């Protein structure tokens, strides 16, 4: 029998807000244990939650980015369960009325080759709701300690429909979702810092069957690659169970990305009764049209829309757009450069190659995302546009331009200033050029002879010698003309 996989994801994303979800104490990462706390975070007797409006703004924005319907009322529920990382022993969440309903994540599957755009699909979302994160347990040899810094951080849970067919699609979904949320300023989505976490529900069924098979929940998938590996592993495991005549048990499994194996955490029988009920400490909040409209005005262009526009409007090749578009600041830099009148292709090349390379090896940009690197680096669109124009108008050669780029990245000076200061302008002095050409002809009699028999390429040896003698400043076009004239 032939089987197909059906996968749904639950993605938890921490919102990037100044303070926690229900109190004014700062949200953050990497602080000394249990210092980002107050009576509300620690659930001291008498403490009460008060909603953080910035968090609500951000989830509404996320919902608008993903095309969700935004509920008219934000309602809060308590999810009751005992665990030491949960200070109140209940979590404030949204149960029957999530803030965002429906919507979809547009994904791109791997193309036939690296330079070919892959198939795009819309993966429907079930819901997005807002809740508060829990603390972190640090297990020692003889005891476990709780760090409450993370407790109370605004956390968004994004639930997809069971609509993914493969591990690759799950990988593509998380990739696209992360780009959309980072570009919207919703979250930094750093999986290493736990800002984005993913659980997957996986089942298999005979092809043609419409009912879902028994699902297994896979937890602790703490990188996008582990999500892909874990799902692929689980599908293989379920297929093997079926092939051996077994039955799939509904359970929660833990995937170890290092060893590529999984083990059962708990079965369905141990499922909690969360005793949800509306939180009496928090009044429902109306989300009116004016509020939604004010947030809608801040929603950036979707990265895939932007990519399609870059390819259509600027005639950029797919490969370079897939470097530029995932980073909003990089794409913004390109677009601003193009708007200054620089040739789009050339501008895109400078940004995607030279700018990224310099950022990666500079002190300001090393280890940062391009967005963060760009925020501190000295290169502005005017620098790149100026450089493109200098090359285009023949003032400097491409190879000189590469050096100018490095200089302006370091100093922040505009390219024409650097060219002027360092005397890098191409030589168009025909007398000087003729002397270099004459010398080169004299030094390369074989090339001259070959050219005369019709071998065009032989001319390159002479032109190369001229460039070397001029330290790259000879204008290639004039050199070509003069060489042909002198030989001919």
């Amino acid at each position, binding site marked *: 029998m032939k089987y197909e996989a059906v996968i749904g994801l639950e993605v938890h994303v921490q919102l990037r807000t100044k303070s926690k979800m229900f109190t004014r104490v700062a949200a953050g990462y990497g602080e000394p244990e249990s210092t980002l706390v107050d*009576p509300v975070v620690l659930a*001291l007797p*008498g403490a009460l939650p*008060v909603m953080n409006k910035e968090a609500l703004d951000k989830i509404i924005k996320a919902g608008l980015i993903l095309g969700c319907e935004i509920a008219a009322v934000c309602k809060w529920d308590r999810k009751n369960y005992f665990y030491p990382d949960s200070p109140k022993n209940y979590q404030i969440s949204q149960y029957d009325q999530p803030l965002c309903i429906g919507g979809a994540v547009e994904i791109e599957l791997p193309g036939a080759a690296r330079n070919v755009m892959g198939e795009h699909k819309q993966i429907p979302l079930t819901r997005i709701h807002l809740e508060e994160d829990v603390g972190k347990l640090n297990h020692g040899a003889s005891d*476990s300690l709780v760090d409450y810094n993370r407790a109370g951080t605004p956390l968004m849970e994004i639930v997809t429909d069971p609509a993914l067919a493969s591990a690759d699609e799950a990988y593509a979904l998380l990739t696209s979702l992360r780009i959309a949320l980072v570009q919207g300023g919703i979250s930094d989505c750093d999986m290493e810092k736990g800002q984005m976490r993913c659980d997957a529900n996986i089942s298999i069924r005979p092809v043609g069957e419409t009912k879902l098979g028994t699902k297994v929940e896979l937890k602790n998938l703490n990188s996008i690659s582990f999500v892909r590996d874990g799902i692929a592993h689980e599908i293989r495991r379920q297929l093997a169970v079926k092939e051996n005549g077994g039955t799939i048990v509904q359970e929660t499994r833990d995937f170890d990305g290092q060893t590529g194996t999984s083990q059962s955490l708990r079965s369905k029988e141990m499922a909690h009764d969360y005793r949800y009920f509306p939180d*009496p400490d928090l009044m429902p909040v109306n989300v009116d049209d004016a509020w939604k409209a004010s947030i809608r005005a801040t929603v950036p262009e979707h990265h895939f829309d932007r990519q399609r526009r870059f390819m259509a409007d600027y005639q950029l090749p797919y490969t370079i757009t897939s470097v530029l578009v995932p980073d909003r600041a990089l794409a913004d830099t390109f677009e601003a450069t193009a708007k200054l009148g620089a040739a789009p292709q050339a501008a895109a090349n400078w940004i995607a190659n030279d700018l990224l390379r310099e950022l990666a090896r500079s002190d300001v940009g090393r280890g940062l995302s391009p967005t963060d690197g760009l925020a501190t680096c000295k290169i502005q669109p005017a620098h790149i546009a100026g450089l493109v124009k200098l090359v285009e108008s023949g003032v400097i050669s491409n190879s000189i331009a590469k050096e100018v780029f490095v200089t302006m990245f370091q100093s922040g000076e505009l390219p024409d200033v650097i060219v002027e200061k360092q005397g890098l302008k191409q030589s168009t002095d025909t007398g000087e050029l003729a002397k270099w050409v004459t010398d080169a002809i004299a030094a390369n009699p074989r090339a001259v002879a070959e050219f005369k028999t019709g071998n065009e390429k032989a001319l390159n040896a002479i032109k190369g010698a001229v460039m070397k003698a001029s330290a790259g400043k000879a204008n290639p076009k004039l050199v070509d003309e003069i060489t042909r004239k002198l030989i001919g």
Partner: protein
Amino acid sequence: MADDLIYLPAARLAELLGSGKLSSSELVQSCLARTKAVDGRVKAFNSYDETGALALAQASDQRRAAGQARGPLDGIPVGFKDVIAVAGQPLTCSSKMLANYISPYDATVTVKLKAAGAIPFGRLNMDEFAMGSSTENSAFGPTANPWDLSRVPGGSSGGSAAAVAAGEMPVSLGSDTGGSIRQPAALCGVVGLKPTYGLVSRYGLAAYASSLDQIGTMARTVEDAALVLGVIAGHDPRDSTSFKADVPDYRAELGRRKGPWRLGVPKEFFGAGLDPEVGAAVRAAIEHYRQAGCEIREVSLPLAAEYAIAVYYLIATAEASSNLARYDGVRYGHRSTKAKDVVDLYFQSRAEGFGDEVKRRIILGTHVLSSGYYDAYYLRAQKVRTLIRNEFTAVLRECDALLSPTSPTAAFKIGEKSSDPLAMYLTDIYTISVNLAGLPGISVPCGFTGGGLPIGLQLIGRPFDEAGLLAIARHYEQAHAWHTQHPSLS
């Protein structure tokens, strides 16, 4: 001087302080002396802060000497029900669970009272986590009724009522979830005010049932209650359920509102179970208003009378089961030394830390919310609660306030009902629906039984019309002398 002070109303003490005839230090010394003299028998206090109170009194006297007094409550000691946070003081909720817990922060009412110069004097006994009607459910033992030490002071704010009745405190704070201020006020012969839900911030009040809890005050006179309410009322950004309303000068309003009023008498609140002496005293109070030219009309609250107790014990216990989940022995509070693992730590710590009534309510509330029962219990109870609220709204459209007994009986004997939870629950039958409807209610003394036990008249007002309610209550008080009688404590 000291003996003359113990039963003076706070407003009168404020005058003496203002005129320089009395210092705050003298007043606090007087309260300390009285407390030391009688509290061994009354047991109103779980603890008090002698040095802290005297230091604050001295600071108050210095402010006053410098012409910087902060208002009428400056220098006046206030007793706190042991469920409202005062930074640096115990917050035990009369539970073994929090027996050694010190609050690191102030409740909003504490912040406001401190800003007004009032002195947080000590911690008043209560039913554990405010669950009870007699103060017998305290891990530290019961409080006695100052009028008859063999009887209960009511509850759950029994210590708050007894301290005022026994002359230990001029005013105190309590909390009222189903009658926990009004019922003990009635049983101890003092004034007890439960404000409209949302008028006083709950921040810093250890939660029992969040949608019903409200902080209020016990006092010797209606005017004193107005004085304290004026300080503690008002919107608090730390409490999402606190109402954004202007707070009038309640004390000044007392003189401006003169009636006559249209007053409703809910006929169901005078049925079976009402002690005849209590009924007679309340009817006499109703007669007072009729004589004064008020229009008295009989009204009907059939749903409130029939279902309030059932609805209350579904909603309050559901909320309590969740609110009290935080007491787990992990971060603070009682931690069992017998636990084998983390789950066992929860079981053992909670088994050892909570008393029977608290456990009973947590179990009931957990059941009420559990999968398969939620719709039949919690959801249905919320719907009936809405109907009860609508019933009150309709009646209060026609009436400025409602009059009823506060409690069906006067103070009962310690131990009399402690083995019969249902009988205990019925002592709140006239007060509980007021919490479900979120309305303000006040109990004022309206007589004594033949055996010399105080009787309370309950007045129920319109939402956020405390000014009107206090004026109506004061009209009765000014024509009677019940509040000037004091227990002999012999």
